[in-house]
């Protein structure tokens, strides 16, 4: 009897407690997916700080390498289970596809609130990469769709010690293409390696080719080529392609450059085996890890023409997007506003040696980073051109340049092949 009463009492107690309303209100947790191995520790630290300040937990989940991350994001988009905040690795057309599929929140209103308070914190070129302007060729309504976390420029770097060994002024790197080519003979004679870069992974070839295209024919003609109004067989494009042949013939390119992966290129430059490297501003952190005593400087690719200014690729290095379907989208935007504030940006920059996207955080950065930052004046990026080239055309151009470097094809042959593919793709587009 006693036992029965005890059991009954426990049942009643649990029933009453179970029916009572829950008074504790749980704050949402924000999930962030990223691929930035070098920044993960700093992100985790900032997430802790944000939780202390607001009580909102931010879970940074790292998925590396970037290829695996890229696939994960696409799979999540197909399954409509993207996290609250994420980044996209790819071209502007991929970005546009995510927006069209309703995965990305338009954050223009947040950027423009309080007299454009948030917008004004960023370098305009960093924001431009994440912006779709009026009449863009992707059919996206105008607006800003991502928040730049850092900026980058892709330039050349030179080893001061090796330049000195070659009998050159270590504080005056080559300014013109001819000066650069002339160093080739000295490099060969000294048994050194010239320019190293990740040209086995091709996209960096495309980057340098575009730099020279802007320098030789100007932005308008480059964009006209993308639109199909100028052919790749145009003499100016032949000049661009010929630069790679000239570089190879002069001996200024390192051996095996066409199959070099960027990690190898970084090791060679950091170990002082190569005089020049073509790399992005992220290399500052990489070189620091590999050889803290490395003496080097950043420079624009040497000009091939004085008619138009040299342009380099630059803008937002990495950006975060807010999931438009997330129930935490408001909280996610608030977190990104905090993350891109001056103090957090300075912390990220100091701990990871990346250039901050917030222009007010640039005050205390090392000289080499400042040199990369100054390159922003010359920066452009395919993502801000408003038009994009067919990926098969880009691929043919990159493969063609590899063929020029190994002496398999002439610039004229490559130009003709690229133009053929361009025409085929344009006729396919017209047929659709």
């Amino acid at each position, binding site marked *: 009897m006693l036992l029965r009463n005890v059991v009954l009492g426990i049942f009643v107690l649990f029933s009453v407690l179970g029916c009572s309303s829950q008074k504790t209100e749980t704050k949402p947790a924000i999930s962030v997916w990223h691929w930035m191995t070098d920044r993960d520790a700093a992100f985790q630290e900032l997430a802790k700080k944000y939780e202390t300040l607001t009580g909102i937990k931010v879970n940074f989940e790292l998925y590396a390498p970037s*290829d695996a991350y*890229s*696939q994960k994001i*696409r799979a999540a*988009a*197909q399954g409509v289970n993207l996290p609250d905040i994420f980044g996209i690795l*790819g*071209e502007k*057309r*991929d970005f546009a*596809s*995510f927006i*069209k*599929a*309703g*995965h990305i929140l338009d954050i223009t209103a947040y950027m423009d609130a309080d007299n454009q308070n948030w917008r004004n914190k960023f370098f305009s070129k960093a924001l431009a990469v994440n912006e779709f302007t009026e009449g863009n060729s992707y059919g996206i309504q105008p607006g800003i769709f991502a928040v730049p976390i850092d900026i980058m420029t892709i330039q050349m770097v030179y080893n001061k010690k090796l330049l000195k060994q070659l009998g050159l002024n270590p504080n005056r790197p080559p300014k013109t293409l001819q000066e650069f080519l002339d160093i080739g003979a000295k490099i060969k004679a000294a048994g050194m*390696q010239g320019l190293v870069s*990740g*040209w*086995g*992974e*091709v996209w960096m070839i495309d980057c340098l080719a575009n730099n020279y295209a802007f320098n030789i024919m100007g932005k308008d003609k480059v964009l006209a080529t993308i639109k199909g109004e100028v052919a790749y067989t145009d003499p100016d494009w032949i000049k661009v392609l010929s630069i790679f042949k000239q570089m190879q013939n002069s001996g200024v390119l*390192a*051996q*095996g*450059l*066409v*199959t*070099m*992966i960027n990690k*190898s290129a970084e*090791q*060679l430059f950091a170990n002082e*085996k190569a005089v020049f490297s073509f790399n992005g501003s992220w290399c500052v952190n990489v070189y620091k890890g590999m050889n803290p005593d490395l003496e080097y400087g950043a420079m624009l690719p040497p000009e091939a023409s004085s008619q138009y200014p040299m342009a380099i690729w630059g803008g937002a290095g990495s950006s975060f997007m807010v999931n438009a379907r997330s129930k935490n989208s408001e909280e996610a935007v608030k977190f990104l506003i905090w993350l891109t504030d001056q103090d957090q940006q300075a912390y990220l920059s100091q701990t990871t040696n990346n250039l901050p996207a917030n222009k007010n955080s640039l005050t205390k950065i090392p000289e080499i980073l400042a040199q990369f930052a100054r390159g922003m004046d010359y920066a452009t990026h395919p993502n801000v051109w408003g038009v994009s080239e067919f*990926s*098969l055309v880009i*691929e043919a151009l990159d*493969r*063609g340049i*590899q*063929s020029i470097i*190994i002496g*398999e094809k002439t610039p004229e042959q490559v130009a003709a092949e690229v133009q053929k593919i361009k025409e*085929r793709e344009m006729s396919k587009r017209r047929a*659709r």
Partner: protein
Amino acid sequence: MKIKSALENYTFILPAVTIFSIFYIIPFIWVFQLGLYDWDGISFTKVFVGLQNFKEIFFQDSNWWQSMWNASYITLIALTFQNILAFMLALACDREIKMKNFYRVIFFIPPVLSEVVVGMAWRFIINDIDGANIINRTLIGMGFGNFAHNWLSDPNTALTTVAIVHCWKGFGWGFLIFLAGLQTIPRELYEAARVDGASAWQSFKKITIPLMIPVMVLVAILTVLGTMQVFVLIVSLVGGEFAGHTSVPVLRILASMRGSSRFGYACAQGITFGIVLIAISFIQYRFSKKGQ
């Protein structure tokens, strides 16, 4: 009674059929279906293009066929050099030699290593500026300095170098299967042959080879399937397709899927590739049946 027995039999194979259908048949059909669309892999809308993607693969995509040719070249080297080496080593280890267990372990180390690790290690061994340049140094040391060059960035040697590294990595599988096959051959057959006055070569020709044919077919099929799909090793050795000289089908599929955002086209390439592999395996199987 017969119906009951048949139902029982079907019940027994039902789990296997279900698993096979869910993980193989349905995805294959689904990928084929996606191959009929123009789709970027992200949007919710797909444009039906019928067999247009397949038509493009067969009649316009020269890069695809170059990649098929490259993969076939690597496969040919693997089928010959790699499998002959594996068979010879298996024969050696099947005999009563000293430390045979040690050799078995050593030969099986390369297959269990990651392709990325193997690629990076060989890149270090081969390359002359960012590596130890061991091969060129050896050649120079032996007086063959004329042959020393950059093996991975010369279009004439890049693919063969990749193929040889692939063989080094893969021969252990063949070795293990051949060894297992050799050990199933009854020793009495060799003893009887010896009593009848057969030489070692005759025993090998009349006993070992005929009894090993099913194993050889199995190894050949596995080699074709494994080698045609090689790509990680290539990426870690030469960074990618190297102006098409080291391009292989899986790299082309990845380029379509990620580089060009042509998910539908990549699916069509995947289906085409799958059908080619199935056809090759079927032909090998038929030949082996005829041989037996």
